[in-house]
């Protein structure tokens, strides 16, 4: 694909188009729908009705218009700032949380080949770890700059939680790298398209089921959503690190959280559910590519659904329970998984 002759301009244009198509349309689209879907979904499974009041005249569309009403409200409300010695940091924090969450999608392959990946870098998953953990700075700085003891407590809890679970999530994914022998997400996805014994897809969840559970637990914990929401902890800390944020500042934090939900879905799809590959379907025909992209979107939505259901099913953990789970259960379990994977791989390669 060459849009114009100038090579540099071509790269920039292609990157922009891919970014717009994937990040702005797909990711932001799902994140926006999630603001409505999460409230509605939780309502239905708790025998409630959920948001249905936003309307255009008589059109209510089952509360779908809340997606439209919320931004209008967020943009027009008073953007309150507390009496803080760090007003600049206070304004900067939502951006620090929001931008890394979007940046990470640059390396996610959502279709076959370079045309369906914003930036193909061999760093792959390392880039995701590096950028996604920057996210915590936004929350911690926001908590610190709020000049509020609840916020500060929330910030402390996030940083502790992030450090604990960052270790476990990294180790839980190491098994995947060992099996597929690459950090490049496009490579990993393509290798999951193969079949084992002729009929089982070589997906990460088949080869590393234990790692998938660990990944899901750690990822939800890093996103600080229930059952790991001690950083927000409505019953203890008002609203934790975003207590003092209103209007768009609050919206940025909330949207960053939803984008991370999508991110967990995308990374989980790429590493464990075969990425964009569909078992038994190979080729370059346009309809296969469309199917593969659709398959990626479907798997991502499935993982988002799983996260949402877990969030509304499980009771929250206490703070000390989270720390114990992270360091004394998940971390050893990830190490054990790594050792077993290594031993099995050695025998498989010998055989």
């Amino acid at each position: 694909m060459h849009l114009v002759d100038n090579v540099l301009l071509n790269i920039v244009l292609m990157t922009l188009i891919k970014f717009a198509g994937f990040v702005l349309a797909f990711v932001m689209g799902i994140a926006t729908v999630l603001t409505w879907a999460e409230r509605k979904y939780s309502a239905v499974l708790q025998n409630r009705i959920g948001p249905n009041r936003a309307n255009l005249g008589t059109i209510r569309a089952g509360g779908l218009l809340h997606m439209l009403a919320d931004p209008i409200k967020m943009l027009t409300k008073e953007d309150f700032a507390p009496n803080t010695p760090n007003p600049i940091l206070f304004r900067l924090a939502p951006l620090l949380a929001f931008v890394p969450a979007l940046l990470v999608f640059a390396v996610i392959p959502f279709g076959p080949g370079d045309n369906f990946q914003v930036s193909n870098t061999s760093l792959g998953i390392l880039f995701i770890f590096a950028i996604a953990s920057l996210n915590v700075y936004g929350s911690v700085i926001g908590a610190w700059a709020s000049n509020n003891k609840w916020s500060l407590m929330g910030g402390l809890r996030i940083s502790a939680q992030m450090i604990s679970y960052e270790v476990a999530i990294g180790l839980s994914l190491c098994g995947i790298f060992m099996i597929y022998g690459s950090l490049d997400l496009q490579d990993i996805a393509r290798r999951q398209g193969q079949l084992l014994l002729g009929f089982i897809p070589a997906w990460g969840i088949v080869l590393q089921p234990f790692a998938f559970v660990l990944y899901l637990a750690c990822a939800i914990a890093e996103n600080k959503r229930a059952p790991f929401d001690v950083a927000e902890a409505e019953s203890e800390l008002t609203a934790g690190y975003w207590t003092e944020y209103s209007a768009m500042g609050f919206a940025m934090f909330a949207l960053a959280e939803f984008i991370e939900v999508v991110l967990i879905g995308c990374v989980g799809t790429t590493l464990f559910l075969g990425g964009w590959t569909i078992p038994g379907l190979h080729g370059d025909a346009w309809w296969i590519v469309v199917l593969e992209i659709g398959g990626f979107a479907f798997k991502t939505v499935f993982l988002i659904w799983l996260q949402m259901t877990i969030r509304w099913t499980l009771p929250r953990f206490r703070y000390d329970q989270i720390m114990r789970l992270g360091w004394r259960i998940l971390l050893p379990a990830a190490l054990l998984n790594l050792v077993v994977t290594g031993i099995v791989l050695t025998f498989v390669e010998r055989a």
Partner: protein
Amino acid sequence: MAKVVNRMHPDFATQSYVIEAFKGVALVTRQFARNIFAKKDVVTVQYPEDRRPYTPRFRGKHRLMLRDDKSVRCVACMLCATACPANCITIVAQQIDDPAIEKAPSSFDIDLLKCIYCGFCEEACPCDAIRLDSGVHTIPSFTRRDQKAGVINLLSLGTASIAAQGGEHRAHSHEGTAHGRSSGH
């Protein structure tokens, strides 16, 4: 008496939390599907459109009952004002021509901001004149004056009571027996 508390000792599978988590997910999903496709367990009342009916014993805004000839049943005996623990009833009595009744209120004011809706006034009333069973939830207002329900206001909710009342002509009190909740002779 000492009470034995049976502590739960979950087995390892339960304590590992993973299986239980997925069981929970299955349960929640079943309920979700049930609410979408099958019988809806939704209990939400869409408030401004649908209202939950009050119980028959609900004590709402006061009303003054009427005689058959549409005059107020109240004889200004002041029992309700005396019984009222909140001192919210102000009655000004006047003489009327009927020698059997003698008195009627010229004004009957209830300060709804003071009223605690205890129902003592309707218990005290010998004439079944004041009742709290209108079923009207007291309406909020922007001024305090609007909360002073005058006699006209209370009468507008009134209906004829069939309870017999002293001073009434025999012809008007049909069976002559007491009906309803509180009635005196």
